[in-house]
């Protein structure tokens, strides 16, 4: 017992085996503290030179680290947000399909199939994105630019390869789909049966029952699932690195060959050849990415925990 409940009572004798074992368990727990502290400290230590170095060495335009990192941050958030926009409605649909539409026996198998998507390595998604999806989408992009080019999002000139930020967003959406689906499925299944039956007893159709009972109950869970999916999309590296034809710009255009790249992809593409201050700059961008995902994930946890407090089921 590491913490004595009351200091006034005599502690009973401890066996060496108990002391050793609980000590080892404690050490493992503390190692996690240390490891996380080490991640932060080492990243900061290696990133520091990027902030203090001569701006001319840091970026090509000579305006220093921040002007280098801002387009990357934009690209990271832009791609992840687009992915979320695509994945969220689909995930909710799939989760509802599994929890409330599919027959019970099939539902479990369908869940497995969606989980399989989560098991596919990201490099395979990247390969698929560039050899299958990008060429397949290219004619669609041409059509969009020709016919809807007046909308700024679809402004030309159209990319000749399909390796645009929209293709990346689709690949990312496919990758985060299983995460959001799995969590929202759980939440939907937890809807109190009484609420559902009450709605059905009032003569509601299935969809009205879902709108009245399931969705309101699951909203906090949905929000946190979304956040976790977003966190994953922000940090995803290989799919973006392989599919996107990158450049360092801030642009909302979805279909051109000039696409804002992401922090993670930029590191993966440039790290193997980087040297000197370049390494420090890349690590500094990694630190920025870490902070962004930390923020998003903490927000998700915060929402989950707050929900635990007032759900009051147990």
């Amino acid at each position, binding site marked *: 017992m590491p913490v004595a*409940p*009351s200091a006034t*009572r005599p*502690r*009973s*004798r401890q*066996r060496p085996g108990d002391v050793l074992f609980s000590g080892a368990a404690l050490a493992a727990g503390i190692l996690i503290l240390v490891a996380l502290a080490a991640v932060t400290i080492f990243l900061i230590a290696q990133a520091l030179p990027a902030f203090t170095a001569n701006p001319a060495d840091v970026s090509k335009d000579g305006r220093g680290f921040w002007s280098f990192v801002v387009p990357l941050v934009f690209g990271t958030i832009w791609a992840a947000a687009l992915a979320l926009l695509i994945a969220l409605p689909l995930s909710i649909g799939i989760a509802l399909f599994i929890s409330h539409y599919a027959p019970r026996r099939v539902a479990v198998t369908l869940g497995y199939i969606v989980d399989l998507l989560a098991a596919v390595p990201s490099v395979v998604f990247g390969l698929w994105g560039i050899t299958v999806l990008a060429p397949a989408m290219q004619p669609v992009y041409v059509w969009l630019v020709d016919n809807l080019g007046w909308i700024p999002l679809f402004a030309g000139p159209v990319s000749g390869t399909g390796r645009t930020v929209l293709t990346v967003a689709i690949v990312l959406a496919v990758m985060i789909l299983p995460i959001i689906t799995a969590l929202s499925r759980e939440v939907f299944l937890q809807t109190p049966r009484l609420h559902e039956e009450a709605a059905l007893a009032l003569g509601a159709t299935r969809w009205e029952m879902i709108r009245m009972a399931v969705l309101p109950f699951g909203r906090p869970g949905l929000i946190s699932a979304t956040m976790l999916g977003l966190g994953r999309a922000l940090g995803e590296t290989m799919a973006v690195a392989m599919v996107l034809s990158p450049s360092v710009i801030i642009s909302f255009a979805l279909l051109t060959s000039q696409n804002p790249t992401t922090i993670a992809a930029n590191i993966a593409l440039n790290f193997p050849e980087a040297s000197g201050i370049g390494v420090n700059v890349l690590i500094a961008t990694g630190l920025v990415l870490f902070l962004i995902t930390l923020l998003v994930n903490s927000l998700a946890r915060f929402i989950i925990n707050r929900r635990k407090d007032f759900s009051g089921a147990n």
Partner: protein
Amino acid sequence: MSKRIEVRDLNVFYGNFKAVADVSLTIEPKTVTAFIGPSGCGKSTFLRTLNRMHEVIPGAYVEGEVLIDGENLYAANTDPVEVRRQVGMVFQRPNPFPTMSIRDNVLAGVKLNNNRISKSDADDLVKKSLQGANLWKEVKDRLDKPGSSLSGGQQQRLCIARAIAVSPDVLLMDEPCSALDPISTLAIEDLIDELKSDFTIVIVTHNMQQASRVSDKTAFFNIEGTGMPGRLIEYGDTRTIFERPSVQATEDYISGRFG
């Protein structure tokens, strides 16, 4: 083998909550003592202090003394693990280890403590303990089957065999029949009567007929109200308690007026 238990001014706490107050009693060797009383009166809590199982629950502690043949269980240098080897326990719900065979369940106390035991010694111990628990005839042909393959009553006797295999001096039973059917209950009650010749037995029960059937002495615990500590109201020969109780509350409880 069996030993005398003396309890002096025992108070039991869960954190700041006092669950049992001011219990003093003496339990003679080779007797069966029954603890009766309404739910929440602290009889199970008190039973668990007799082998220091109580303190497994975080924040729980004890004031006072429990002496077994004059040695205080709560002395500063006493090892709770040693205490529990001396004072065995059988729980409310049968809890054989699901990962072990019947044989390994009986040997659990030896094997889990990393003690070496030769095959023939182990065989003898298994046979002796299962015979002691009146289970040998029923399971001798399937000792390698999982313990959870037995019926509820058999599982409970397996748990008793497991407890007596470490040859304790005292056997504590916390409502051992409450999850069992009447026939299994009867088998356990017969067993208690036989075990009495080797062990000091303390049994908590909700069933007053059971208390009157199996025990030599009976202790009645009661509680004044929620949030109040449980207290020992009356302790004496079972016949006296059931036929001529000296306290009104005991009589009310025994005649079924509450609880």
